[in-house]
């Protein structure tokens, strides 16, 4: 790993990520999208985020991929508070508190 390699990665990843983010915002502009497409796009958040998080919860890297009671509990609490009380703040607080609490009980 040389300095040059690191800089190429930083710049390449930076520009590439910006292009990904700008893609549709830049191209679509104020054009109307077809109804079927809008119908699909409505589900982007619930289609991406649960899938992204599921493997991290079931096989956490910090425990070398072993299921972990503290992390499973924390995830359940965060999801439950978020879904029932519609509160992101409560979900974040509750989840992290549950994580530390169970960790201190079990270890």
């Amino acid at each position: 790993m040389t300095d040059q390699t690191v800089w190429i990665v930083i710049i390449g990843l930076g520009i590439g990520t910006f292009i990904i983010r700008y893609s549709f915002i830049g191209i679509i502009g104020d054009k109307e999208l077809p109804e079927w497409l809008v119908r699909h796009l409505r589900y982007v958040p619930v289609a991406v985020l649960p899938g992204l998080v599921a493997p991290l919860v079931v096989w956490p890297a910090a425990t070398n991929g072993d299921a972990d009671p503290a992390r499973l509990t924390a995830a359940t609490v965060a999801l439950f508070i978020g879904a029932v009380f519609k509160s992101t703040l409560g979900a974040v607080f509750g989840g992290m508190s549950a994580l530390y609490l169970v960790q201190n009980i079990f270890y």
Partner: protein
Amino acid sequence: MSKQGHNFYWQGAKAGFPFILVVGPFGLLFGVVATETGLDTIQTMAMTILVIAGASQFAAVQLLAENAPVLVVILTGLAVNMRMAMYSASIAPHIGKADTWQRILTAYFLVDQSYAVSILKYENSPELSVSEKLRYFFGTMIPIAPIWYISTYIGIVAGAEIPQKFALDFAIPITFLALVGPSLRSFPHLSAAIVSVVASLLLIWMPFNLWLIVAAFLAMMTGAYVEKQLETNYD
């Protein structure tokens, strides 16, 4: 503008505020890990400011440490960020009428938190104008972006003194779950979320983060299909 204008920045900032609790630890952890890998302060900060996408930064740094070829490092990082193309498509109908420079700024700040918080607001308040929507969006990043930069810097400086016990690795799953919870507001949303979880766990063997993209597409199709079915049945 004036009072009303500030109001939307403020509303967005309030909605973004809880996430400093998780973005902070995540930035901290990135600072620590990047420094341990051998990136210097300027490189670590440059990456955090230019890329501003934590998960891909972790992936890139890990591959750099393993001396993977440059192209592999960049493409893996971009694969992790491909979900943002979907965010871009989803938010485009709301802010597509904005000026070019505003859209460029929106693209730069389009992260999981700003996107999820804003899109929820737009769907609950469709009457908002483009400029109100923009102000709300930028408002969400007022607390989040500075915390991301600053906590990375603290991580670089404080280094390995942060005990593993704090389980900072789990800050990011908690964030995503906190973003998902409030979005589960109808049966189609719930169906999509369940398909997303099951598909990602079953497809995790796929390379280049394809599992996430495939799972997301299946889940979007599920949500749209269930919504359509419900509509048809009620008509």
